[in-house]
């Protein structure tokens, strides 16, 4: 029997509800409560603000730097590029904008958005708001791959390729180990098993990285390794983007398409399966998508921590946990945040401050503030 039909016939509210909360007694005429839209206007306002901040940040990032370009010059250069004609901008401004600063800005925004998307998906999947995209070892695997590439003095493209493959391989190993443990000995929480396998393999990879650093040439290789491990957007080129950007975009598609269903992963496994959801298939899809986008990011810019942890967590406090609302906003704010960090990093001092250092310096206080906000809400 269909519920809506059956309750239209027997719409009388339960009498005990009235005794329970007299002010909240259910109306007697209709059984369908009104769904107010107070939240929708707020979410729309937050979206507008986030888009405005993103656009503003892109403009600031385009103009700020060792070679300052004013906003007027910026628009005239863009106009010249799009519609032809001449500009009043200084010589070389064109080169700086479209070959150096432009790709770097696109990369920073894309990486920030990718890490925030992967983090948001993983926090749902692991039912833990404090999880970052590298919980399944993608960063450790990529780092080991890159560090080995640097040790062997391979060209940059090969180092990036090794980092990407290393990240995928680490996650694949952890997934296969976790999955085989669960399928051999049924009745255990598959998510917890994955986390534990991740801890074990991650620490194994970490010791591999440590060994490589110990053996590396302290004058050439060690600085390069350290530089890579801290992350940087300084050497991003158009060809890096041409490979990484499509991977990030393609990996975003399944997360966006499954945006409502990913909510079910936040439930305990049995509960989601009792709702008819094939959780292992959905989980694998999310893991593949998040791993691809994180590995592509890490391969071009090294390890930048905190973004994938703090941004989705903060956005969840703003708009709630519902993934179809969470995902677009997390990507927008993640991209803006990463762009802010990179812009500050390249203009604040004589040398470039690695984004990994800045995200930590910004992320740690923000995170403590978020915890305080969460505790305030809980009271």
């Amino acid at each position, binding site marked *: 029997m269909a519920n809506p039909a059956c309750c239209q016939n027997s719409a009388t509210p339960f009498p*005990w509800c009235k005794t329970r909360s007299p002010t909240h007694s259910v109306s007697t005429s209709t059984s*369908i409560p009104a769904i107010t839209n107070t939240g929708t206007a707020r979410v729309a306002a937050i979206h507008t603000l986030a888009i405005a901040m993103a656009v503003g940040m892109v403009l600031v990032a385009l103009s700020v730097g060792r070679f300052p370009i004013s906003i007027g010059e910026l628009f005239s250069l863009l106009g010249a590029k799009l519609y032809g004609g001449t500009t009043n901008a200084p010589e070389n401004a064109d080169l700086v904008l479209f070959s150096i600063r432009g790709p770097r800005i696109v990369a920073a925004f894309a990486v920030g958005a990718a890490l925030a998307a992967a983090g948001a998906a993983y926090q749902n999947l692991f039912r833990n708001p404090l999880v970052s995209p590298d919980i399944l070892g993608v960063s450790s695997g990529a780092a080991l791959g890159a560090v080995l590439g640097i040790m062997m003095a391979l060209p940059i493209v090969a180092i990036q390729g090794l980092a990407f493959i290393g990240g995928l391989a680490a996650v694949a190993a952890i997934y296969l180990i976790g999955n085989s443990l669960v399928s051999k000995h049924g009745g255990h929480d598959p998510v917890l098993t994955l986390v534990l396998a991740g801890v074990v393999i991650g620490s194994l990879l970490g010791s591999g990285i440590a060994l490589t650093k110990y053996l590396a040439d302290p004058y050439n290789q060690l600085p390069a390794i350290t530089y890579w491990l801290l992350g940087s957007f300084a050497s991003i080129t158009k060809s890096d983007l041409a490979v990484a950007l499509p991977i990030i975009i393609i990996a975003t598609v399944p997360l966006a398409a499954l945006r409502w269903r990913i909510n079910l992963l936040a439930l305990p496994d049995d509960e989601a399966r009792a709702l008819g959801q094939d959780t292992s298939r959905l989980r694998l899809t999310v893991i593949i998508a998040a791993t691809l986008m994180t590995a592509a990011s890490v391969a071009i810019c090294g390890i930048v921590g905190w973004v994938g942890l703090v941004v989705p967590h903060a956005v*969840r406090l703003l708009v709630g946990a519902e993934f179809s609302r969470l995902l677009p906003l997390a990507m927008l704010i993640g991209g803006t945040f990463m762009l802010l960090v990179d812009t500050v990093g390249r203009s604040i001092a004589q040398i470039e401050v690695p984004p990994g250092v800045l995200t930590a310096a910004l992320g740690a206080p923000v995170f403590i503030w978020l915890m305080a906000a969460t505790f305030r809400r809980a009271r």
Partner: protein
Amino acid sequence: MTLLNVERLSIGYPRRVIASDISLDVAAGQAIAILGPNGSGKTTLFRTVLGLLAPRAGRVLLDGKSITTLSAPEIARQIAYVPQNSAGLFNFSVLEVVEMARAPHLSWFSQPGAVDRAIAAVSLSQVGMGEFIDREFSELSGGERQLVMIARALASQAKYLLLDEPTASLDFGNRLLVLETLIKLKQRGMAVVFTTHDPDHARRVCSESRDQTLTISRAGQVSIGPTADALQSKALAALYGIDQSVFSAQR
């Protein structure tokens, strides 16, 4: 007549059978209470009936078809599960939690629409939680959460409702509220199967002649019968391994 039949079912894990030879017929408008000491396999029985765990022997039939031949959404559209103490970890709204029950009715890439929203809203008001629709699930009290979880089960439009200790860790008032809700659902024609540690709860909900009580002992011995028979002090003493004199002292 639609039926959920459990036929000579053995439940457990590859190396350990927890209880065997469980037979049970569940019909619309019927309530069945399941009692047994901790670890006797009540939750395992639910997981097996839901198709989450393979039966060790025997079978579960839904409208005459073995559930091992049905897809997970097909089962979920018929049998709804209310787990024990669902914790609100993330800040989903009550409506969003209830809407999740529409998953077995939707394709992988679709979102719940206006109809699904209306079904969720109706389900909430059916358990008297209509006013809570925009609240955050994690901010609710234990009793309110339990009612929302029951509403979620209703929103799946299943005929069979399996509730795992629906009254556990609730205060006295909320316990009565949940039990009354179960009775109403039974009267509306749903089949209500629930586990409990309190024989009084079984007596309260399963009071009609068609209702039954199933007991599983620690050793895996299963018996089923009219509630009054199953809950005689002699039977309870045997079930929980205590002396019958405890009951006479109590009365």
